[in-house]
């Protein structure tokens, strides 16, 4: 009898265990499938402009995909949309931002973890953490209030009339400031993970501390630093609010002039959003598809480079 009850209790316990496991599994599956839903929904909505016809005025139109991908003008009435130049401008802006942010971040990380006295290193780490925590809308405000003014004055020195400072250069500066904390924090972690033996060996061979830092420590930490750069690029490509506030909204392009207004994929999606239906709204989802593809593509490429570097 006693055995029987125990067996029952045990069975009940395992049954509850099974139910709970099932519930938890369902929740996990839901969380994991979010990414699939995102891609699916945006894809379904984003191909509409190329498949369905939209009524503009009296006639029905659809958008030509080839012209959309290679276009040098964002919008021509009634149905020509082009984002070829926007893709180029986005990559240009992000590339320049990375060219500023990567050296600054790596040097800062080296300073914090190898050169600076303990206290100074701690202060700068805190500063970097604070910068990482500041929301992008405040960077946008800072960009509009300070960076564009600076760029405007700089343009004046070169005798160039900029659009109130809204420009490629402002966008690059704001983006660089925003990705510096990301790259720096990961670089610090990977530099701190460099083995003590390696450093000691280099010093014992007669290299100066600085030579060791630059030739041994950075070399050993390069894989981690590169991961930081990949994350930084991802963040820069997807950054919307701050970029929209300083980019201006160029109608055609591409432009490589630093003092000229520009347009990125994200600013295209965010600016001029008025209606919540129709072609002009749906085309933003097509831009979204391209943005996702671009981010995945760049990520994949950089990961390939990283693998080759570490080989």
């Amino acid at each position, binding site marked *: 009898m006693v055995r029987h009850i125990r067996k029952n209790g045990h069975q009940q*316990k*395992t049954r*509850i265990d099974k139910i709970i*496991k099932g*519930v*938890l*599994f369902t929740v*996990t*599956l839901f*969380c*994991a*499938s*979010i*990414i*699939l839903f*995102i891609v699916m*929904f945006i894809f379904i*909505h984003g191909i509409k402009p190329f498949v369905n016809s939209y009524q503009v005025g009296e006639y029905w139109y659809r958008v030509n995909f080839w012209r959309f991908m290679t276009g040098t003008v964002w919008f021509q009435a009634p149905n020509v949309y082009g984002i070829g130049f926007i893709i180029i401008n986005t990559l240009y802006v992000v590339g320049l931002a990375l060219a500023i942010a990567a050296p*600054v971040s790596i*040097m*800062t990380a080296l*300073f*914090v973890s190898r*050169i600076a006295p303990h206290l100074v290193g701690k202060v*700068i780490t805190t*500063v970097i953490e*604070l*910068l990482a*925590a*500041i*929301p*992008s*809308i*405040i960077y*946008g*405000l*800072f960009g*509009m*209030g*300070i960076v564009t003014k600076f760029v405007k004055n700089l343009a004046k020195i070169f005798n160039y009339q900029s659009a109130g400072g809204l420009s490629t250069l402002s966008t690059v500066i704001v983006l660089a400031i925003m990705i*510096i904390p990301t790259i*720096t924090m990961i670089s610090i972690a990977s530099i701190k993970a460099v083995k003590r033996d390696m450093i000691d060996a280099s010093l014992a061979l007669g290299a100066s501390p*600085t*030579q060791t830092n*630059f030739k041994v420590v950075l070399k050993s930490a390069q894989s981690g630093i590169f991961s930081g750069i990949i994350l930084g690029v991802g*963040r820069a*490509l*997807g950054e*919307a*609010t701050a970029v929209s*506030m300083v980019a201006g909204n160029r109608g055609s392009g591409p432009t490589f002039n630093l003092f000229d207004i520009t347009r990125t994929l*994200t600013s295209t*999606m*965010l600016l001029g*959003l008025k209606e919540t239906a129709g072609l002009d709204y749906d085309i933003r989802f097509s831009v*979204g598809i391209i*943005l*996702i593809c671009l*981010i995945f593509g760049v*990520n994949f490429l950089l990961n390939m480079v990283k693998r080759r570097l570490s080989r």
Partner: protein
Amino acid sequence: MRKIKDLFLNVITYVSSSFGCLVLIILLLFVFKNGIRLLDWSLITSDYHQKTYQVNITDTKNYHLGDYSDPQLDGVYYSSVWGIGLQDDIDRNNEKIVTIRYLAPLSPFATIAKLEVGYQISKMTMADEMGNNLLALAKNGAEPMVADLDEAKIITDIIATSGGGGIRGSLLTTLYLIVLTLVIALPLGICAAIYLHEFAKQNQFTHIIRTMIDITTGIPSIIFGLVGAIVFIPMMNKTIQSSGGSIASGALTLTIILLPTIIKTTEESLKAIPNSYRMASLALGASKSQTTFKVILPNAVFGILTATLLSIGRIIGESAALIYAVGTAIKDSVAINEKSTSLAVHIWSLMGGENPNYELSCAISIIILLIVGLVSLGVKLISRTINKTEVK
């Protein structure tokens, strides 16, 4: 030669490190210099949209004039005839206004016109004993207005506005968003973390699930905004009868943004729990689920708290996703099934127009920065506490 080269390289690292500090200092100076003037209690408690009142004081039987005592306030022009003290002021949109600073309890402005201290008078048309019309405008200042009032016997027209330019609605919306999002996201995230760490077998399938959650972290927030716009807005329109974006659709969008972070953070804290706890509990006869909910979860409370704080920080700073999923219309009355703006989107709306409003934006930024700073401080304190307990 080597020394010079070393020195040069070192100097580069000094300069780079000071760049970050410089940016932070300039940013804080900019925000505080512009925003500090507006930062007071009334900013937080007052509405954004002004309410306009058009009233008159013409029924001479119901009031008497002339014997109100002067409260002697600094910088306030006082009309003892009408019992009203007016002051020159500049509003949150940088325009010259005349504000009511004092009202005698029996002043006709209080008893008949029902105006209150803090309201702004933009225009008054009055008539004196002879029946001559007097016109006082706010742009001429408080002093001539009071001089006219002293002459007047009746006031045929007063146009007054209540303060306006406050952020009560946006602050409330932000709180709604935080509470609603956490209520949905925390249970889901914690369940997923528990499954992944306590129940899942380490096989290919689990690996794929982990990778998918990782990839979600890399999706920019504006894409989540798009999803909110095409999935959650129609869903909410059907279920809670909202029209267009709403706080509910915003909270659902924020939920899917935050889930990966919550899962990651919670799982980290689960990893830190020694395996002996699980063994001990199981050996005492507790079932797997009893162990999980009664032994493991209470020990992961710091990790869950960290996840909560990080989520709050993210919600407060989020703008791009909410612009799509909720909208950019600033509201004073806040309801879950209606459009509204969080603090960050409030800034976006203020900066988007023809005349960007730097002062109010910076004042809101100070509030956001304060909250974000507190949140980071909280996260740091928690991690320090965990480290301490681990040493023991």
